[in-house]
């Protein structure tokens, strides 16, 4: 069926035709202008009526009479009243065609064939084709704007497309054709259109997401305008509703009524699908006895989001009978804890509060941070469970306790007597898609306040980044916080349009994590020359440096798997060949400072309590070294020195970390390791490496053989080795490598001496002397630093103290039969 025939088969066609005659902008202008004219003229008329007999205005009266201005003014008012009512009715008429596919799900009848939004595209393309209709319609333009595509780009593409005469209407997945069906059709059947979007870095998922947002924006506006809806009217507070219920004087001291909280009416929460949790609460609170629920979730606002959603339902009377007309009162545990310092006061106040709630008869008592109150009572020696048990098990009270999952597991789960009174409800964390929907309305609000514009990709990135770059807490809270920070930041920096790059730029500024947003030309050079930069510090390990550089380039350009650490390497080789130096160089080059390398000596974690030391102890509540380290610094290089020496439990922990990019600490809190480069070093296989080098073989060619030997010795499990991005063999340093290292180290000494006005002459003989005495087979170049300190620096210090080495002098070292002597000239 062609577009025109299809359009005419639906009753919406008339509305679309009307809209083409009187557009929304025109309607709004008409209504505004007529309203202003009416008000001004009515005032003018009243002014004239009351002042016409005043002597000062006699001439005015004559003037008005001679031109019949009163009659003409009345005429103009009547005319404008007519126009105003007309524009109002036209608005009602057009609004009646909305389907509210998002705000109120699927409010349409099958015989209407298409939604209003889809109809707008088809109507715009009825004389051309669907693709041109998409570009010509106002809603299509809005979608492209949300995708960050400029009108100039659209024009070039639009003009390049040929019109397809009598194009068939695409088939819908549903009974009614929706805008998303049209978008899917265009993307899959018009290669040029898909290419046009792909060239701008836009995927089909982002196209559909932008459509979702635009529809949400239109529908919310229309939906909120309908103030006469039962849910909207029900939001008005009734008078005398609490006349039949008791007063709660003591409870009021420690609590607040949350029914009118801003969040209850916030659009942001309307799409977080909390129906499952609310339904569980309704079931629990509808019981005849023990009508209590315990909401368990991560620390943050997610539990309150469920409560606010429940309050919204209470307000709009869309809730089960047991909760209707009830007052949700939030009891702040911390207020009671800080006010009641001894056992008697606490027990007395708690019992009184519960009695007041029962007497009032219309209260749902929501206890915030219940574990805090419970712990405080237990610490004061109170038998809290027995104290509140009679109240909780009575038929005349409804309690919702909120608890963090870690507190719940630690303190309350095992208390059967307490938990028998509660129905436990786990608050499900929102997925990225749901978080994006929550950000929709907040982003629109920010746009209004700061006069900025968010693209859909920016909103998507906010949702992704919230959990990716910021560990701990609830993702939806973090995403909203991030949005609220970005809006004023962009305003300050003169950025009016906020896209994905701006979001990443802000995160990079905030966290110092290279985010993969805009890569500056300076940084591009750095990434392309990583090998050279690292090789300035790491000598003789080309293969290792190349492997690490490749991993970093993958990470920075966003090609890597986002659910794993940036990189993970197992460095195998003898001592003193540059394994630690590579980690330091990496921290310096990639993260800007050597301080971004965190070191764990794994030989300290051999005993049975190794896990407790690393991730904390549940029993003692002590935090772990590793978890605290990563909480403080969420990005950088973690060096796991002598990795083979740690115990099996710790190795198993790293199986998960390397695979999933997070681990849970002692309290069950997730710790993100996705912005970390892990480098595990081990001397395992060193003997084999030495043997191969002595036999003239390159150890790199026998990596498999070395790994097999390590596995056969039971040092690492094969699955752990496979979890690393790469196992890199560090070969023993050759004499030329050692000479280079000696030269670098001596140059560092020379640089320090230059600051004192002295000069150190570095001769080949001195380098050979340092190599010969400062290195050995077993420890590689490791003793070199100590040797230079003892011999070279020690000699220089003596010369300074003797007063021989003064500013401007050159210090020369000569070697005679392996004896070092210094001269000043």
């Amino acid at each position: 069926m062609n577009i025109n025939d299809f359009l005419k088969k639906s009753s919406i066609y008339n509305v679309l035709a009307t809209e083409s005659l009187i557009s929304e902008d025109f309607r709004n202008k008409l209504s505004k202008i007529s309203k202003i004219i009416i008000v001004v003229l009515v005032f003018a008329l009243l002014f004239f009526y009351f002042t016409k007999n005043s002597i000062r205005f006699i001439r005015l009266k004559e003037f008005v009479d001679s031109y019949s201005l009163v009659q003409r003014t009345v005429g103009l008012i009547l005319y404008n009243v007519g126009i105003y009512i007309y524009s109002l009715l036209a608005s009602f008429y057009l609004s009646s065609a909305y389907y509210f596919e998002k705000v109120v799900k699927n409010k349409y009848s099958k015989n209407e064939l298409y939604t209003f939004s889809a109809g707008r595209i088809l109507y715009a393309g009825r004389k051309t084709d669907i693709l041109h209709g998409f570009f010509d319609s106002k809603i299509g333009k809005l979608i492209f704007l949300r995708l960050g595509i400029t009108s100039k780009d659209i024009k070039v593409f639009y003009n390049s497309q040929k019109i397809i005469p009598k194009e068939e209407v695409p088939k819908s997945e549903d009974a009614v054709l929706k805008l998303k069906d049209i978008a899917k059709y265009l993307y899959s059947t018009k290669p040029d259109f898909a290419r046009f979007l792909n060239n701008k870095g836009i995927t089909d998922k982002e196209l559909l997401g932008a459509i979702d947002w635009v529809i949400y924006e239109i529908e919310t506006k229309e939906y909120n305008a309908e103030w006469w809806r039962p849910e909207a009217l029900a939001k008005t507070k009734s008078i005398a509703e609490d006349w039949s219920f008791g007063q709660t004087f003591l409870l009021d001291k420690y609590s607040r009524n949350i029914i009118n909280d801003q969040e209850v009416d916030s659009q942001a929460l309307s799409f977080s699908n909390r129906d499952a949790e609310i339904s569980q609460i309704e079931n629990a609170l509808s019981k005849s006895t023990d009508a209590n629920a315990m909401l368990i979730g991560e620390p943050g606002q997610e539990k309150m989001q469920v409560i606010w959603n429940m309050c919204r339902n209470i307000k709009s009377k869309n809730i089960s009978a047991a909760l209707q007309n009830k007052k949700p009162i939030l009891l702040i545990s911390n207020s009671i804890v800080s006010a009641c310092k001894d056992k008697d006061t606490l027990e007395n106040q708690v019992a009184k509060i519960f009695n007041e709630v029962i007497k009032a008869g219309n209260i749902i008592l929501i206890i915030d941070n219940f574990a805090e109150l419970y712990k405080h009572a237990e610490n004061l020696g109170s038998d809290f469970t027995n104290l509140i048990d009679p109240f909780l098990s009575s038929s005349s009270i409804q309690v919702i306790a909120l608890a963090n999952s870690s507190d719940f597991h630690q303190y309350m789960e095992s208390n059967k007597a307490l938990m028998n009174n509660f129905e436990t409800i786990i608050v499900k964390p929102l997925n990225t898609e749901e978080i994006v929907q929550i950000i929709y309305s907040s982003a629109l609000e920010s746009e209004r306040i700061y006069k900025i514009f968010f693209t859909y990709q920016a909103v998507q990135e906010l949702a992704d980044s919230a959990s990716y770059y910021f560990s701990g807490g609830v993702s939806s809270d973090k995403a909203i916080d991030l949005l609220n920070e970005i809006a004023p930041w962009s305003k300050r920096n003169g950025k009016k349009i906020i896209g994905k790059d701006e979001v990443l730029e802000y995160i990079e500024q905030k966290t110092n994590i290279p985010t993969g947003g805009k890569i500056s030309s300076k940084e591009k050079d750095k990434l392309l020359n990583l090998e050279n930069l690292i090789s300035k510090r790491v000598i003789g390990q080309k293969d290792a440096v190349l492997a690490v550089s490749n991993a970093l380039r993958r990470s920075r350009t966003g090609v890597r798997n986002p659910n794993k650490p940036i990189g993970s390497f197992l460095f195998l080789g003898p001592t003193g060949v540059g394994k630690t130096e590579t980690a330091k160089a990496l921290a310096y080059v990639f993260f800007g400072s050597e301080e971004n390398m965190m070191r764990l000596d794994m030989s300290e974690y051999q005993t049975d309590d190794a896990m407790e030391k690393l991730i904390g102890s549940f029993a003692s509540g002590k935090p772990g070294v590793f978890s605290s380290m990563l909480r403080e610094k969420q990005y950088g290089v973690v060096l796991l020195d002598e990795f083979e020496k740690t115990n099996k439990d710790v190795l198993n922990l790293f199986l998960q970390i390397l695979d999933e990019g997070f681990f849970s600490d002692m309290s069950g809190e997730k710790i993100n390791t996705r912005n970390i480069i892990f480098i595990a070093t081990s001397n395992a296989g060193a003997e084999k490496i030495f043997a191969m080098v002595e036999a003239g073989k390159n150890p790199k060619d026998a990596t498999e053989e070395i790994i097999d030997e390590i596995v056969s010795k039971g040092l690492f499990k094969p699955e752990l080795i496979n979890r690393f991005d790469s196992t890199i063999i560090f070969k023993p340093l050759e004499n030329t490598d050692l000479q280079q290292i000696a030269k670098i180290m001596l140059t560092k000494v020379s640089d320090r001496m230059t600051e004192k006005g002295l000069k150190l002459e570095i001769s080949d003989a001195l380098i050979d002397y340092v190599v010969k005495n400062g290195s050995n087979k077993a420890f590689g170049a490791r003793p070199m630093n100590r040797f230079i300190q003892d011999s070279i620096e020690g000699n220089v210090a003596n010369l300074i103290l003797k007063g021989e080495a003064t500013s401007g002098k050159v210090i020369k070292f000569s070697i005679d039969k392996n004896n070092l002597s210094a001269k000043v000239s």
Partner: protein
Amino acid sequence: MKLLVTFFGYLGWHYGKALMAVFSFWKNILIFLFNFFSIKNLLGNFFTPWKRLADSYPKRFNIKVYFFTFLVNTIMRIVGMILRFIIITIGLACCAIFVIFLPFALVIWLALPLIIAVLIISGLYFLIIPNYKI
């Protein structure tokens, strides 16, 4: 032709779907008034003491205390009943006015297209030919 189609399309909506919407608008407001004055709630708890401010009777029988408790509770009940009666009366009066309003609203709605035409035409008439004095 397009103008004619849209005009008749509009009339179809005005006297069909929109007329039903007027009824549902009227129903919504009526329910709102009923809820706003808490009529159901107040009727259900008509004899309950004012804000449940009632004393408990003593466990041991003492005629004096018993009498005073009875007196206080009765006063609180009477206060509650009087105030509730006032609100219920006002609420029901508002609902009654609104019920009566429906036929007027319907007449206005049915005549609205005509009213618009009359307003525009008479407005233009006064504007162009102001032939009589107010």
